[in-house]
């Protein structure tokens, strides 16, 4: 029973399209994160949020944007998808104690 939901799981989309990757959580966690994962590479933090109306860019520069209007939702948007955006995107949360991160199953994005 997943407490962090990412949709879609897989997405193939054409260059130039606008896309939004959804992430929802039922854990009531204040902190949420988006990581980008390429094969054989470390997870790169691209966005994070410590609460509603709080968003920050991560260590890896990304053309995507995020919003945090509600505690439960942390969507990621690409205004104009490009093949270089092809990757797996993982959403994660952590609670007040920050002693563990909980991950969704990921969205594998392919831009053709």
């Amino acid at each position, binding site marked *: 029973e997943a407490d962090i939901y990412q949709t879609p799981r897989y997405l193939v989309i054409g260059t130039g399209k606008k896309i939004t990757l959804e992430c929802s959580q039922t854990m009531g966690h204040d902190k949420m994160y988006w990581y980008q994962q390429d094969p054989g590479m470390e997870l790169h933090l691209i966005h994070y949020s410590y609460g509603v109306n709080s968003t920050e860019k*991560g260590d890896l520069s990304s053309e995507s944007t995020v919003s945090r209007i509600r505690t439960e939702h942390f969507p990621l948007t690409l205004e104009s998808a490009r093949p270089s955006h092809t990757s797996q995107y993982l959403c994660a949360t952590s609670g007040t104690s920050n002693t563990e991160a909980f*991950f969704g*199953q990921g969205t594998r994005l392919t831009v053709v």
Partner: protein
Amino acid sequence: AQSVTQLDSQVPVFEEAPVELRCNYSSSVSVYLFWYVQYPNQGLQLLLKYLSGSTLVESINGFEAEFNKSQTSFHLRKPSVHISDTAEYFCAVTPAQRGKGGFKTIFGAGTRLFVKA
């Protein structure tokens, strides 16, 4: 800032053999240390963590890791692996207290463990 280095990108091993996946970290502040496991087409799951206290921590499926502060290492070990242990393993650190940069968790590049029959 923190960083994590996983010294082996791939580790092939025969079933029932012992295995060690190596992880070194650097940090100017106290950190929590984690090992996460990722099975194909899945997100990451926590395997074990070190927060404080005993430097040897264990998971429910036979893995253990030892925090070595002097060597800044947190190597993962299992005395006898199974085929089902085949997965990617990520070492991670996060600041124990919020400072500049907040509570960002930093991950290593991962080690792919491949258990052969």
